[in-house]
């Protein structure tokens, strides 16, 4: 759960995020942000993005 300053939290999470919710990040196993969404995310689109990231991770093993 987040506590403390919004400003520092927003900056730490993603420098391009304005603070507007919803905000969704997809992070790969290396801790890199693959994609972000700043509005409502289609479930199928999100699922496809997750599968793509997982597949890319498998390919690197």
């Amino acid at each position, binding site marked *: *759960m*987040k506590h403390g*300053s*919004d*400003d520092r*939290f*927003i*900056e730490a*999470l993603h420098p391009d*995020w*304005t*603070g*507007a*919710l*919803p*905000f*969704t*990040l*997809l*992070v*790969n*196993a290396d801790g890199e942000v693959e994609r972000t969404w*700043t*509005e*409502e*995310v*289609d*479930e199928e*689109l*999100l699922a496809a993005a*997750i599968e793509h*990231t*997982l597949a890319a*991770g*498998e390919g690197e093993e």
Partner: protein
Amino acid sequence: MSERKREKSLGVIVGGGLFVLAGLAAGVAGAQGRSGASAALSIGDRIPSREVRMLSVDGSHRTIGEMRGASGTLVVFTCNHCPWSQAWEARLTALGNEFRERGVGVIAINPNDPDAPASARATFDRMQRRFAGTSAAAGTRFSPDTYEEMQRRARDAGMRFPYVVDGTSDVARSFGATRTPEAYLFDHRDRLVYHGAIDDNPFEESAVEDRFLRDALLARVARRRPSRAESRSVGCSIELREASGAPE
């Protein structure tokens, strides 16, 4: 790949604030791709949409231009339903009422489409559960973005400045505004000198450490630059109306 291995392979951070997960993921709340927003204003930019007439809660029509004050102008995008707007409402009202008396013109603008999805109610309910017991959650209730509800909130809060409807959301677009609440303070020459949050803690006023907007307003009336020109805060995505291409 096993499920356990998949769980280790990626993380999906949903909702941004990390304190409202999953429910703010696919299919819940947020703008519906009705952007058409301009780039965000930069410090030093002039007031956009100064002559757009907007319906105020007292039945009159107001423009930002006619609300300009001798010391500057404060424009705040806010709304009825957003838990963050509700949490900051008393503080925003107090600041607006105080500084209008000190030469700063003040106008609050609701840019939201009142017919936005009912998912806004789902978001509110989740926030109420999460922040149950805090000072800001107490007394908040689901408040649709209708004109009648704007009138009620303005009256109950004791606002002595206009709370107006951005009937096409085009004013919000011209500012590049993304969330509620979001504050823009302009100087006496209509140049942006502060943009961002009201303070650094919406839900626990007693824990506020940085009163960004108040400090900027004090600097403005003293004809000084704010020590902090920009800040960011969590808030609700603006529920834009379909882009019209024309002001109301």
